[in-house]
């Protein structure tokens, strides 16, 4: 298997699986088996690519030419490799979890669900491996459309409304701003290839750089930069595996990944920092971080709270790009991984709680920790990772983001990151803490902590739900200790133009 074939295989496997899944619609066990098998196979192929990548292989393949110079091209570079690994790796977890959740919650039209899910993953990989802006844009839209049926899955009026907002905002921003930015870039640079150090320097009047950046930053609606974040909470009507897909595996990560990619390969961080064009974005991202966290504090619905938490966390990555130095890119990219691992756990926990106890509000969770210890321990661990505490992965990405802020002399940003962590504590930890330590309403469980006899038995969600949760929660810890390799890998991200390297 050559690297190029592997590249196409990685993209094609999930897409091909859709047909099998569709064909096996009437045999759920086989269908779900196909879905899981494909996810594992895809991950294996991506790992193969990763292995080759580490050995220095840089496969690139051009599929077809839409217009002269406008080609559908796939190429592997470090950021994309990272994103692909995260997306395909977490797909396995989500695929297993989906089985438990969809059956546990008795959802309808599961075949459609699995089909759209596979297409979404395929699109995410397409985004990851895209070799130019045009290819990226195409798969960006594919991802939007393929996730729409997932968001609307329940087909209730609320689901339709949420899906409408979801599609509306993502489409609006991508067509109104992103496409214009893409065409503009093409117009001035004459190319859309992702190149180390960017393609715009010397070709664009520096006065326009902030404007173009704004078109990109707001155009990438999936990055949920305020004020275009509403779609994320609106999409909360979807079944939980979809939320996991949106928040951790593919969608928002595709957004911030695009953001990073545009920052490094289209603008070039050096260019951004020399022109100061991303200055405003730093402030906007910082504001987004804080405001979203504060809103999250006020939400009682667990998934909604997590959604706003995602909005806030995504801005970390945007911030990393906007700070425009190497540490920022490293921190941002690292945060993609760390946040993905943490957030997927949180959402899967929220789903498990729903499946097992039919509770969706934080205030209803008092005392539930005793019944669902695994779920809530995982929730605690993932919360700590999101907050950015050692020994959890999130600590490192925050470290590099802060380092980047310090390097860019944005001391206020350091303060913002600190305050944000505290706000994270305030809105995430109460969930698990209340579940474990606050006695249920009316119950008297006051004991000076001498002994803790569990009342009633365990009432966990199905094993298909709980096992993935535990895996990702432990993943959060492993990421803390294995960060060295990740860091080495991220140093491969070319920051300077090739000629000066």
């Amino acid at each position, binding site marked *: 298997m050559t690297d190029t074939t592997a590249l196409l295989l990685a993209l094609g496997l999930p897409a091909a699986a859709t047909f099998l899944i569709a064909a096996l619609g009437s045999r759920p066990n086989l269908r779900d088996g196909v879905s899981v098998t494909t996810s594992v196979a895809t991950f294996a192929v991506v790992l193969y690519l990763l292995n080759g990548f580490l050995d220095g292989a840089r496969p690139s393949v051009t599929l077809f*030419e839409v217009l002269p110079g406008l080609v559908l091209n796939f190429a592997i570079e470090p950021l994309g490799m990272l994103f692909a690994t995260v997306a395909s790796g977490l797909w396995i977890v989500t695929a297993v979890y989906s089985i438990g959740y969809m059956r546990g919650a008795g959802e309808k039209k599961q075949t459609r669900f699995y089909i759209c899910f596979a297409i979404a993953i395929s699109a995410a990989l397409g985004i990851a491996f895209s070799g130019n802006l045009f290819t990226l844009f195409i798969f960006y839209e594919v991802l939007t459309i393929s996730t729409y049926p997932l968001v609307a899955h329940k087909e209730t009026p609320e689901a339709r409304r949420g899906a409408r907002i979801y599609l509306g905002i993502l489409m609006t921003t991508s067509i109104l701003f992103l496409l214009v930015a893409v065409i503009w870039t093409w117009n001035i640079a004459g190319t859309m290839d992702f190149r180390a150090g960017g393609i715009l320097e010397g070709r664009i009047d520096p006065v326009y750089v902030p404007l173009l950046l704004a078109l990109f930053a707001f155009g990438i609606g999936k990055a949920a930069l305020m004020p275009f974040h509403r779609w994320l909470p609106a999409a909360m009507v979807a079944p939980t595996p979809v939320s996991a897909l949106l928040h951790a595996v593919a969608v928002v990560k595709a957004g911030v990944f695009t953001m990073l990619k545009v920052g490094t390969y289209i603008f070039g961080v050096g260019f951004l920092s020399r022109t100061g064009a991303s200055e405003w974005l730093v402030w906007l991202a910082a504001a987004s971080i804080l405001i979203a966290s504060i809103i999250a504090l006020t939400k009682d619905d667990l998934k909604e709270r997590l959604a706003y938490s995602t909005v806030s966390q995504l801005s970390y990555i945007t911030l990393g790009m906007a700070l425009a130095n190497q540490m920022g890119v490293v921190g941002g990219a690292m945060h993609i991984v760390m946040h993905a691992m943490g957030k997927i756990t949180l959402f899967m926990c929220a789903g498990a709680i729903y499946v097992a106890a039919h509770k969706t509000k934080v205030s209803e969770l008092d005392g539930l920790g005793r019944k669902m210890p695994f779920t809530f321990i995982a929730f605690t661990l993932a919360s700590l990772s999101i907050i950015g505490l050692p020994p959890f992965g999130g600590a490192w990405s925050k470290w590099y983001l802060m380092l980047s802020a310090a390097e860019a002399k944005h001391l206020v940003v350091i303060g913002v990151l600190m305050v944000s962590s505290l706000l994270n504590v305030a809105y995430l930890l109460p969930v698990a803490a209340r579940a474990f330590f606050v006695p249920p309403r009316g119950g008297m469980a006051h004991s000076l902590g001498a002994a803790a006899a569990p009342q009633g038995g365990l009432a966990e969600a199905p094993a298909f739900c709980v096992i993935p949760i535990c895996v990702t929660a432990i993943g959060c810890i492993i990421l803390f200790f294995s960060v060295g390799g990740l860091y080495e890998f991220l140093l491969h991200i070319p920051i300077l133009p090739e000629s000066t390297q």
Partner: protein
Amino acid sequence: MLAMIEANLPALQVVLPLIAAPLCAMLGTGRRAWAFATLVSFVAFAIAISLFIATMGGTIISYEMGGWAPPIGIEYRVDTLNAFVLVIVSGMAALVLPYARRIVDYEIPAERQVLFYTAFLLCLTGLLGVTITGDAFNVFVFLEISSLSTYALIASGAWRNKRALTASYNYLIMGTIGATFFVIGIGMLYMITGTLNMADLGEKIAAHGDSRTLRTGFVFILIGIGLKLAMFPLHLWLPNAYTFAPSAVTAFVAATATKVAVYVLLRFMFTIFGFDYAFQAATLENVVLPLAIVAMFAASLVAIFQDDLKRMLAYSSIAQIGYILLGLAFLTHTGLTASIVHLFNHAVTKGALFMVAGCFIYATGSSSITSLRGIGRDMPWTTAAFVISGFSLIGLPLTVGFISKWYLVQAAIELGWWPVALLIMGSSLLAIVYIWRVVEQAYLQPAPEGAVRREAPLSMLVPTWILVGLSVWFGVSATMTVGAASRAATSLISSSQIMWQ
């Protein structure tokens, strides 16, 4: 023999359907008439293709009718532009006719079908004639042939809905006014130059220079053609005509009639008037450009509120014509390319969409959007065709609609007309809304109780899907269409005498 045919291809292109029409009327049964008309349309298409290939290199085929040399005789003149339009027109005919059999059976009583196909062939004759001729008055003649037959075709929708008659009547009045204006304009030109041959007109007008009469002639021709191509606000005949016409007619006329009118406008503006007069550019910028933009929004907004699928698509057509006029009004090579390529792209897209509408009518007996609830399950192929063509209408990548948008926005950016670029994108967002209304109905609403709806017959599905396939194919590999459009634009520009910036 072959050589003779080849030499006479331009004449055959028009003469063949013209002679076929009365023959068809004599065939007796609808089935036979249909078969004959289909055959003729295939041959016409083949001729158009061979003409297109012949002109591809930039050669201009000049055919003297009856051996009389221009400017005295009538000249048929085929260059890249009108060969392109010929392909569109005859190609659409060749697709609509196979499609027509079942739906015509459904919509028109058997005894009238012979006449229907006759009118259809006449209409085809007219449209082809308008396109191919190099004589200004001849344009008027063929325009009337096509218009009169179109009135008849639309009126034949009266068996299903009586309002087709008023619609046709209105169209008749408006079309006649348009034709009158057009002929007045030509008269004025004749007054100045004493010739009717287009090439000759161009030279003479250039020699004659600016005058009141010339200006008046220009305005009359502009308004006259504007009526034919449904330029906002001269579009009022169109919605009803499209809505109440039989489905096959709508599909054909929507894809071709307005396109041919646009071609005439292009031809007159560039070849005849030649653009060395500031007043033309000013008229375009002050009248056509704003009207085009208003059309893009007003018509799209109206489309959003429509309940009738065909009516919605009709309004969408008015908006799309706005795009075409907009590209024209840019007066740049890119703008013209966008305009011309959109002629083709919109023909393909809208043709497919109206065919889908016909399929829905065939299956449900109604063209109301609310009757489409849950139809995605019953008619998966038809609905999928609608979704993909809808994407093209919105302008999503990998469809032809994207290519048009791409060039339009590029043209706007080249000129530095930022607001226009954003407006173009803004109006595509409205397209999302009206397309998505249908998608939501089709997929996310439960089917009405007891509704029995079967997938459309293959003879309807195949032409529809050919168009859908084309809209994807030329969206993925647009080099050919864009190349042709670009060459056509170049030839138009070179045929005018103005100094291009």
